């Protein structure tokens, strides 16, 4: 069957905060230009945006506490009362948890204060941005995933969506539908964290030459309905410590969305060495802590989700442009540490890219040289000024939280330089950190205690609350490269995938006859966090998009 080819001026891949902000700002800039009576030649203005979630916001997940300032820049015509925020931050505490106690720190760690910020539900915010973008003439198509890059002559020339109606072996079925090819003058990579096309693009065009490898944390989040009075609306709590040890990077958060609803989650670095470390389990243990129990007792789980967070900082940012393409938001790794805030930076990076795109359209020049204006403007921007002082933050914590705090302390004094001669601390990929299973002597992170199904839930139950669904009739979107490597991994590391995956996509099963252990995949459980693509010790798992519209239905996460 022929593959239909669609042409547009700009194709934005991903309908999150970055992609939509890009589309909104770019549409604004083009319209402003074209409406100017002095301008003779109009700029082409077709902006198309693809989102793999079944509708906008369905794959969006964040804490989230954000700085509203950036919306005044993106949407100067919109009054701040109209922002779809839940509540301003009214109380802001940082706690230190031991197994049984919670100590409130009398101060906020540097860069951690939330004064003037608001608590938002990212999905809601995204739907709001989507409506604005559509009003501005952006053609938004949700439920379609860009699956494949078409690189021609060393340049990105197009993308293809998934074919559908294909069986598990890739054979077309009776309801087969061909992919659609999209060609554009400029492509915007806004896939979010660990976007698989961005990953392929960076690899193919070597855009990360000389960069630190990107490193990530995995955040696992739940939304709970709680009795009134258990946790105040507008209250923000961050916690350090329990159930993690001092040599591990991570912590918990609880945000009061309303009088009866909270967002609750746990974030931990994927560089944790323990191969049995399981962020979902960490959240369950966290929920059993007396401090958290006091809040969620008599409450009800509403939603579950997980997402990775790019934490590599400034030195892990790849080259942000190439011929006909720019990378924005989490796909590039714009994230402020240590507050783990990325929404405002994704919007700012998108706006910078939009300006560069407008200039490129005006000059009819989509080359690398023309688009490098984006990266240049970034270096003069507030985004850079925000990332520079903390450029070595995450690296400092790579081995040990206490030593890291010391190192970070030095960085504060030295303007971010810390104990280093070059001014740049290096980092290894997350997958490089993995202990051998034998070193654990049978110990499993968090123990094997069964879940009580009141406060704590197994992954299978949690997946239900993510609303995730995938067409069973399709090739697995999680590609395990080699069965042999799997066997080695199970033997050496005990199959860490069964622990790190927050959605039970990976099951290590034992053959009842041979007693041999092997991997069983459940791709339809996937919540698209992409931890497997990051953490697998042998780079044995490659994540790609399933059919468009498949995946979690977060709605309000």
């Amino acid at each position, binding site marked *: 069957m022929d593959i*239909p080819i669609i042409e547009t001026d700009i194709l934005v891949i991903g309908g999150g905060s970055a992609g939509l902000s890009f589309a909104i700002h770019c549409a604004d800039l083009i319209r402003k230009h074209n409406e100017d009576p002095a301008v003779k030649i109009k700029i082409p203005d077709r902006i198309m945006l693809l989102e793999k979630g079944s509708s906008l916001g369905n794959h969006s997940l964040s804490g989230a506490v954000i700085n509203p300032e950036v919306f005044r820049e993106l949407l100067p015509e919109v009054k701040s009362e109209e922002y779809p925020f839940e509540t301003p931050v009214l109380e802001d505490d940082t706690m230190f948890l031991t197994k049984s106690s919670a100590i409130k720190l009398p101060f906020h760690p540097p860069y951690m204060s939330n004064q003037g910020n608001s608590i938002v539900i990212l999905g809601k915010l995204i739907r709001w941005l989507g409506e604005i973008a559509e009003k501005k003439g952006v053609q938004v*198509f949700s439920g*379609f995933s860009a699956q494949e890059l078409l690189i021609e002559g060393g340049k990105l020339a197009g993308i293809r*969506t998934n074919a*559908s109606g294909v069986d598990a072996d890739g054979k077309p079925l*009776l309801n087969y*539908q061909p*992919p659609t090819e999209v060609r554009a003058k400029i492509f915007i990579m806004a896939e979010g964290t660990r976007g698989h096309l961005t990953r392929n693009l960076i690899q193919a065009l070597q855009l990360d030459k000389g960069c630190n490898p990107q490193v990530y944390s995995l955040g696992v989040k739940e939304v709970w309905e709680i009795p009134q009075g258990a946790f105040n609306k507008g209250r923000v709590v961050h916690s350090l410590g329990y159930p993690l040890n001092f040599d591990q990077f991570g912590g918990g958060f609880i945000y009061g969305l309303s009088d009866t609803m909270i967002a609750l989650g746990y974030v931990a670095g994927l560089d944790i060495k323990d191969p049995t470390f399981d962020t979902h389990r960490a959240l369950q243990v966290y929920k059993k802590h007396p401090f958290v129990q006091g809040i969620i007792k008599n409450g009800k789980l509403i939603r579950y989700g997980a997402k990775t967070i790019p934490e590599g900082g400034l030195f892990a940012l790849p080259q942000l442009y190439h011929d006909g393409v720019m990378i924005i938001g989490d796909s590039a790794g714009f994230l402020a540490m240590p507050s783990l805030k990325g929404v405002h930076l994704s919007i700012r990076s998108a706006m910078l890219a939009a300006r560069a795109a407008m200039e490129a359209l005006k000059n009819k020049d989509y080359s690398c040289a023309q688009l490098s204006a984006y990266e240049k403007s970034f270096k003069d921007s507030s985004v850079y000024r925000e990332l520079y002082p903390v450029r070595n933050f995450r690296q400092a914590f790579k081995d040990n939280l206490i030593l890291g705090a010391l190192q970070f302390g030095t960085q504060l004094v030295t303007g971010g330089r810390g104990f280093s001669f070059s001014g740049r601390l290096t980092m290894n990929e997350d997958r490089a950190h993995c202990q051998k299973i034998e070193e654990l002597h049978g110990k499993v992170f968090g123990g094997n205690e069964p879940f009580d*199904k009141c406060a704590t839930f197994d992954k*299978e139950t949690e997946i239900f609350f993510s609303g995730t669904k995938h067409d069973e009739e399709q090739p697995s979107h999680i590609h395990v490269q080699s069965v042999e490597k799997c066997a080695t991994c199970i033997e050496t590391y005990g199959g860490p995938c069964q622990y790190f995956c927050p959605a039970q996509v990976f099951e290590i099963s034992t053959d009842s006859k041979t007693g041999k252990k092997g991997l069983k995949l459940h791709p339809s459980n996937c919540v698209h966090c992409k931890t497997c693509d990051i953490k697998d010790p042998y780079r044995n798992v490659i994540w790609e998009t399933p059919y468009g519209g498949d995946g979690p239905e977060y709605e309000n996460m």
Partner: protein
Amino acid sequence: MAAMARNMRICEDCMGLKVISLMKQVPLTSQMRMGADGLMDRTKVKSIINVDCCFGLEQGLQIKRSVADVELIVVSMGPPSFEQSLRQAVSLGYDRAVLLSDRRLGGSDTFSTGMAIAKLLQSQILSQNPDDKFIVFAGRQTSDGDTAHVPSQVAENLSIPQVTFAVSIDYSPTHLVVKRMIEGGYQTLKVPMPCVISVAPTAIHMRRSTLAGAIKSRKVQIQTYTLDQIGVDPAQVGLNGSPTSVAKVVNIVHNRPAVTMVDGCNTDDISSHLVKLLDATETLHAVSKGRSEASAAAVPEAPKQDKYPRADFRNGASGIFTWAEVHGSELVRSSVEILNPARKLADELKTKVTTLLIGHNVKGLAARLIALGADEVIVVDEPRLKEYSILPFTSVIEQIVRERRPEIALFGATTSGRELAPRLGSRLGSGVTADCTILKVGEYVNNFSKTIWAPCLEAIRPTYGESKLATIVGFRCPQMATARPGTFERLKADNTRQGKITEFSPVLNDSVFCVEILGIDRKEGGDQGLFTADVIIAGGRPCGEIDDFKLIKELVAALEEKGINAAWGATRQAVDHGYAPYSRQIGQTGKTVRPKVYIAVAVSGAIQHVSGMKESGKIIAINQDQHSNIYSCADYGIVGQYQEMLPALIKKVRSGFTFGLKAVK
């Protein structure tokens, strides 16, 4: 006229094939709400293409594989918001989208809907040439109305053949070969074109949109028509033009006591605990407590109203007709069941029950029908009527009805009854109420005409996801209804009953035999067992996915070994995914069962399923989700994986545990 048309025939090959897919947009089942007026409130909820219609749409697209230049037209009737689904159909590959939208259509019943859609097709889509080739596809039924009537009624209004409940369709330039579900198996038919095919959800899944298709669908013009444009008199549609009306709607009250959760530290422990609990209760009886209470609570006696004069709208029509469906040489159970309400209605109305027995060499069954409650059996014996087929059977019943003028006609809601009744209704000008669970004599206060219509048939059916009972009345004789299989108990055969056996010779044109029956496959004969089993073990979709109902069947076998009459069933989800045959489906549009013990395994407790089993004696639910809805209608609940629980129960059964039942063998 026909001859003239034939002479004027233009080169057939130049006339492209048209495929028309009827599609309805429905609210997501989980979000269904009903307005204060008893009608569906479609304003607030997320809408989707009706699931069965998706399969119809896909069949239309499949024709394109054989006929590249086929014109694909998607057609719907409803408010302008249906545009969303019409565009989705275009994004899949449909060329044209047509919507009949007119406020005056609001409240139309299936009779009026079928007529209006047929008029829309005739006036806007089909040419005047009677040799035009076209196929109309539709979904089996909609999730909000759940009648399965409209496809039959469109076919009748277009005077073309039909196949309903189709599971596979093979196209050839001269005809279609269609396999359709029948009680306990499948029938394969060769159908000429033009025709209407309604598609069941076991066919090919609807394809996904392509991006290119989605882009095209945003630009397409939806052709919208009003009643005036298609030449339909507004007096014939809507609330007042429809032959049936919703007389009242009441909530269904469930009276089962709260569930007892059975727990323990392992599966063995849990099953022992269950054994103890069940042994503690007395030996179970077949009498179902839940049932009588639900019906009593749901149907309060109508207060007497005499503010208007009473009017008898029957105009001399009298008598109750029932149709006796025959499979092979056996009476279909549901045809025997409807003799029960027919008998009661006839006694109350002081009239007679007349049963139509149509087939070949079936006369021997007449005496049995009389023993089971009929006063008269009209036998039509004709070799060409050996197997049921919609067109000749409609014609035969039409002829008898026109001669005898009954006031009421009842059918079992089998796949045959559910297509025969509406087609006949459209031909006779009568409304039909689908899938009834209560049939009684009542009256209707008509505030428009200021009269009380009495006596009338109150056809009562669960609706809106089984949460309500709607009473439907119609004022054109015969008042027609189909009755849900398993709802009415069969009357005890009384061989001393006297009745009349009359033979009837219909006039049958060759044209009614244009659909050829190629074969009948009755592999699954076990469906009747569901009605007689004392223990039913029903599995949800996971049971199909995980072990293809293996453990469930093992438990059935273990019980049977102990002399317990056990059978297995399945949910609509499991059936729709092909894990179990339709004859095993329990719940709305499937069967209503009432065993002494009902074990729901990995059943989520969707209201559609619960409606078909809630009258069971003891209900035991096994589900891994502690919040599952199934526990709200169960007596005993076990939270756990069924793969672990069932082996433990099987072990208990093998060592003598029979859920408190006594062996019958």
